[in-house]
């Protein structure tokens, strides 16, 4: 704290003597927020599988409980962190926090987590009323579900910020642990991004330009932000690896458990969970981002981002077009490893396009070229936005 300029003399006079007691360990709320992020994504993917396999749920269905556990865990630990810092914190702890509403001190990450927890808990009575008014859950995105999703993602983002501020703002040498925590937190949020937009990114859409436009919006934005925010050389790749690992674990573990449809009509019968999707092979295009950032580290940001975004899109397109085709059509994908057999209980299993591309979702020639052109433009734009976002994350101190 040498050389620190305090807000006012009184604060300095009262708090300076305690300034030496800076915590050298990672605060519990940081671990708690990453754990919450994990709960949220496990609960979310389980919930989707639950709806695909069982159908019937309620406010306190097991997957919802896991999601809410994440909300409560993040909310309580973060609130505790804020209240402890405010009322019992040392001067150094207060000086390492942001101050808000005149009295409260707390880390920025905790504030995001608190916001996310309140949003998630707000969505519960809203969703309950929604069900009574417009019918029980039938879609992923409704206004109350969107509030829930924003809350969940805010907690996950809060976890990333908590790790970053802990890394940047405190004097300790847990660098490796921080980097891993950051990559895990980032990968978990990336999984949420995929899940939320999976309608456009799943294997059945991999031969349509929309898949790459949506991918071009989401992934350069996020992966470039992550690559920019940390000094890790393979941050984007590691984040994509966490996303893929998370998806694969859920893909392989859920079908081990018994589940059968509890809602009619049942057109597809089974007795075990229908898993969520095989992940996009994001490790490969993410590798392209990291490679460009490493190879052209001294170039101007615009050039670097443009190259990274385009490299990402190119690799993403080549890999996913082919791999998506395999997942959608090949009989070798209809097994536990790739999970392409999964089918909603209420959908006709004899549907001719279950293992083929629906004609409306196939694009070739000029239409595809136009779509990919749009994807390239949006990928550069969102990549630039991601770079700025990452620059801000790089500066987060408290």
């Amino acid at each position: 704290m040498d050389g620190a300029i305090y807000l006012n003399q009184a604060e300095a006079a009262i708090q300076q003597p305690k300034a030496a007691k800076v915590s050298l360990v990672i605060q519990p709320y940081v671990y708690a927020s990453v754990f919450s992020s994990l709960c949220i994504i496990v609960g979310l993917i389980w919930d989707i599988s639950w709806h695909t396999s069982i159908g019937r749920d309620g406010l306190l269905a097991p997957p919802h409980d896991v999601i809410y556990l994440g909300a409560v865990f993040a909310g309580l630990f973060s609130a505790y962190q804020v209240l402890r810092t405010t009322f019992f914190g040392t001067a150094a702890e207060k000086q390492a926090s942001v101050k808000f509403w005149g009295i409260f001190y707390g880390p920025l990450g905790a504030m995001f987590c608190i916001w996310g927890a309140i949003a998630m808990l707000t969505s519960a009575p809203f969703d309950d009323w929604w069900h009574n008014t417009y019918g029980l859950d039938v879609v992923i995105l409704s206004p109350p579900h969107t509030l829930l999703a924003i809350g969940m993602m805010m907690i996950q983002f809060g976890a990333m910020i908590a790790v970053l501020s802990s890394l940047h703002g405190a004097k300790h040498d847990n660098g490796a642990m921080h980097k891993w925590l950051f990559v895990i937190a980032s990968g978990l949020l990336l999984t949420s991004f995929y899940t939320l937009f999976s309608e456009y990114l799943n294997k059945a859409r991999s031969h349509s330009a929309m898949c790459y436009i949506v991918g071009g919006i989401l992934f350069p934005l996020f992966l470039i932000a992550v690559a920019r925010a940390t000094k890790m050389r393979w941050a984007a790749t590691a984040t994509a690896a966490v996303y893929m690992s998370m998806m694969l674990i859920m893909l392989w573990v859920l079908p081990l458990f018994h589940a059968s449809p509890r809602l009619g009509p049942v057109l597809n019968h089974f007795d075990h969970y229908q898993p969520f999707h095989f992940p996009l092979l994001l490790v490969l295009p993410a590798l392209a981002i990291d490679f460009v950032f490493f190879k052209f580290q001294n170039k101007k940001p615009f050039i670097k981002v443009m190259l990274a975004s385009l490299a990402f899109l190119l690799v993403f397109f080549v890999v996913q077009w082919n791999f998506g085709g395999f997942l959608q059509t090949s009989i070798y994908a209809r097994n536990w490893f790739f999970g392409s057999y999964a089918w909603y209980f209420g959908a006709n299993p004899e549907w001719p396009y279950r293992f083929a591309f629906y004609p409306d979702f196939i694009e070739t020639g000029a239409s595809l070229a136009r779509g990919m052109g749009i994807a390239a433009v949006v990928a550069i734009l969102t990549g630039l936005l991601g770079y700025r976002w990452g620059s801000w994350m790089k500066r987060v101190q408290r």
Partner: protein
Amino acid sequence: MRALKSVLLTGLMLISLSVFAHVGSPGVIYQGKAGPYTIMVNINPPDVIPGTANISVYVDNQQVSHIYAQPVYWYAGNNGSPRADEALPVNGTPGQYQATVWLMQRGVASMRISVDGPAGKGSAIIPVMAVSTATRTMPKSLDWQLAGLGLLLVVLMITIIGASVSDGTQAPGTVRSSGPKKYMAMGIAALILFVILYGGSAWWNSWSSNYRRFLYKAPLAHTSIIKHGQQMLLQLSIDTTWLHNNNQLISYVVPDHGKLMHLFLIREQTDDVFAHLHPLRKDSSDYLTVLPDLPAGRYRVFGDIVRWNGFAETITDTITIPEKPVMQNATQNSPLLYSDPDDTYVTSNSINDNKNAFTGKFALICGKPGTEMKLADGSTATWQHTAGTAFEANKIYPLTFMIRDPSGQPAQLQPYMGMKGHAVIMKYDGSVYVHLHPVGNYSMASQQIIQNRINGNQKIPGLPDPERFRDSVDQLITKIRTMTEDERNNYLNANMKGMDMPAMNMSSDSMVTFPYAFPGPGNYRIWVQMKRDGRILNSAFDAVVE
């Protein structure tokens, strides 16, 4: 935001008037057999789909070990049913079991009630029309709760954004700056949040309007009187523009109790004239019947139809019958149209007094629980219920009527359209209308159709050719109409075989019972129709429900 607020602040819950095979009486009641067991079932279907149906099963003096309830959709067939839910005994009410079953899709559904016990296993199929009928607004308490939390979220987010660009990025211990950058960021955040909230509100409104678009609406119709040669005909024309706009097809109507449509006319304000007619169709959307000699006045019109997939609904309209009806679309030299042999109408005292206001004509003086009333043929009808007692809403009652012949002996009742009796219950103000039978208030044609679907092959059904389908149904109706009464009753009984229902058994019993739960408090009139000595016996009663 204004739109959002208008939804948020409207306050009390409003339920729309539901109309499908009834008006304002959504509960489905079944009285009959489930294999060796006699059961009564009361199903309260959800008013929003997807939603849950609450099911009560009553078993009298029989030992059962398990009762299950399972939804069976006509579209998905037997194989498309999810695992059944067990109905659990209700504490303190021996013989009553309760289950909650989800109905996930709109359409023709049914509940299979399966009973297991020492006497073996048995099941019953009860049709349920799964449609959304309710529109609700947010209760005020929740409205304020969400508004408060929403405000907190907005303020906290603006705070976070402000902190993110100020002390959040400053090294620990350095001075906290609150420069213009912070306030500019907060301003931009507020603006973005406003846009997000506005977008959310628009999304909510579009969701709400989409939901309303798929709310169940009975087909609109126009009823008129036309001259057909020397005859006066009543014509009910279904609005084809409405059908087109609502993506509905009307060619696929099937007979229920041997009739394409059961058309009821009840005089408004007084409820003192009641007619039960059975029109034929001229084409897909126009139904014609000979207009009986009804007193002038404005009438409520209720037309019950069943579609080929078992969807039963009630078309409503009103018509004014003048003293001397004005002719429209007069057609000369047309062949005579015959009344359906089961057409009937009856006059009674008005709901406003207890006298016969039809000078020179017979009129029923409506009975009340426990009192005897005179019928047109000199016989009497008595409502077997304690005199002077009011009914409770939403509680199942066996509405039992005893008929005695003019000599005071128990009457020998005959089947009327294959049933021991038909009844119509209407609330005085017309807000409740239901057509019921001794087996309950569901459509027996729907039940038969779903049963056939369960027994048949389990392929997903395709839509038949409309013209061919309509033609074959019309031929069947003509055939039924030309049968003698015995032939018709035999045909209807044979058609209902396999639908294990003792209530249809024509014993020498002179009593007929209709199970029913009045949906709400108020005054109701009940018309009961039976047959004796080849004549349709109409009786009418009044009930007070608290």
